[in-house]
């Protein structure tokens, strides 16, 4: 269309059923697109595979968080109760992993949760305050009864006309162009 106005953000394809978008996702995956995403009102089983997504690396952030939490808890209690201010309580040893375990365990959970949340933020480049998708009125239906695929202009395989043809003819979708502001 009129690409002289401003830089294109990508093409937004609209689908009416989960089955349609599932098929379309497989086609996009096989066409070799990399910078694209699927927006649906509810999770669709098998979509990860249909999109060809890798397993999320967020688990590593969780693991590192948990690992750090556990040893922080143990070290903290050892430092406080045995090293910095030794105090006998109930005739128990000054330090043993036993009584340090509940706190370390909770530190594990806390830092695992932090690792998960902030790892996810980091990987998704969040927080992000603006996305051209927000300006599209029809896109609001992605929280109701419509299914969308957005192929972004940054994709190396993206070409406005070729991609539009691909989406309308191969995927049978209604397509609109999105622009950056």
């Amino acid at each position: 269309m009129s690409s002289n106005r401003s830089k294109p953000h990508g093409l937004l394809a609209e689908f009416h059923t989960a089955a349609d978008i599932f098929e379309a996702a497989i086609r996009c995956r096989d066409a070799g697109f990399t910078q694209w995403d699927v927006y649906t009102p509810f999770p669709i089983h098998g979509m990860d595979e249909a999109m060809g997504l890798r397993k999320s690396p967020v688990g590593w952030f969780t693991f590192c968080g948990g690992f750090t939490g556990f040893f922080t808890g143990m070290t903290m209690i050892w430092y406080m109760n045995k090293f910095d201010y030794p105090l006998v309580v109930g005739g128990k040893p000054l330090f043993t992993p036993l009584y340090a375990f509940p706190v370390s365990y909770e530190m594990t959970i806390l830092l695992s949760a932090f690792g998960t949340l902030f790892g996810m933020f980091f990987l998704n480049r969040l927080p992000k305050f603006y996305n051209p998708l927000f300006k599209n009125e029809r896109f609001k239906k992605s929280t109701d009864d419509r299914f969308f695929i957005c192929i972004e202009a940054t994709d190396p395989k993206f070409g406005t006309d070729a991609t539009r043809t691909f989406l309308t003819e191969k995927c049978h979708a209604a397509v609109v162009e999105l622009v950056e502001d």
Partner: protein
Amino acid sequence: MNAISRQTKSWMAVGGAVAVAAIALFALFGTLPAMGADAGPAAHSAQDAAHASASHGADDHGHAAVSVFSLKQIAHSYLTAYMFCLSLCVGSLFLTLAHHLFDAGWSASIRRVTETVASLLFPWMLILALPIIVFAWTGNLHAWFKIDPASDHALDVKKVLFNPMTFTVLVPVLITLLGLLARQIRAWSIAQDKDGAAHWTSKSRKLAAGGIFFFAFGVTLLCFLLMKSLQHQFFSTMYGVYYFAGSVWTTLITLYLLTMWLSQPGRPLEKVYFKRQQQDLGVLFFAFTVFYSYIHFSQYFLIWNAAIPEETFWYVRREVGSWKWVGMTILFGHFFVPFLILLNQDIKRNLAVMIPVGAWAWLMQYVDMTYNVMPVVHPDGLHLTLWDPIFWIGMSVVLARLFWSDYRKNPAYPLKDPRLQEAIIHHEVPAPGASAAH
């Protein structure tokens, strides 16, 4: 039919070979405890400390050295094996009840397996419990069968539960009722195979709603009576849930391997068992690895922290000699190692890992039962005898055989369960390149 019986035969042969290997292994190790028994004054003084801390001064009749061929040894080996097998039955009953309580979809296709294992409770586990009652009456198991409560305060306050008559009535009644609960739910499920009516499912759900309470009380009472009361001075309100957690843990990996085997090409679950069931069973197994440790650690930690002699003696006794290392084996083998292995999402579908983990889990559950039962007769340390593998493997093989003949009599999965469709919806996603032809 022929094929199945051939499979059964080859499977029995494998079982036999494993049994022979295990017996040989145990025979070899059976000679080791002689060294452990002479661990020297250190072990004995620790044992004395254990005595002293059992403040009621109740003498433990099981404390004398026990010879390999004594009835006492046989009784305790038998009880250990029985508790192991019972854990698989109650674990299966729990999973059946939980399926109905949650109105689950994914587990509909594997439910007939848990229903059938749980149905072993009646009559088979009941029959297998009878020798335990005989052993107890003849003074070879629970010391309190031969103690006058008037001379033992710890027993006197618990004599309502811990007296021979209550034991003799309650143990068979509880096993029978749990077994009938399992059989009733299975009977309704089989009735549904014929007419496909949904009301069988809602009936099962209602029974499961009440049944889960009975299950909780029943299993707690059973493991109190059969296992915990071997040292009747002990207090722990967590003991029931501790046994339950270990039971479901073992059951889940057993179910994982069994359904995996049953879903191989040509076997009955081939068309109703998918990656999803495998993954979910693996995830639940992982969850119960954590749950078991949480419960066992809590029991230990509360006792350690309160430091009341009536409770601590139980663990003090289990830090004597090689029992300390058995405890460490449970800590690392029952928790840390499986936990770290199973952390990875994809590992739960990797059979090269899950099969060894399964075998290890069975061993760990048996070690856990040994840790509960055997220190009573072998206070100086772990003492394996030939009876242990004979009863453990023998009872398991007999029950497996009974399970298999029972399982074959009915459809391999609930044919007309209303939720079956949910379990077998399978998303076949073409691999990259497959759609290029369109």
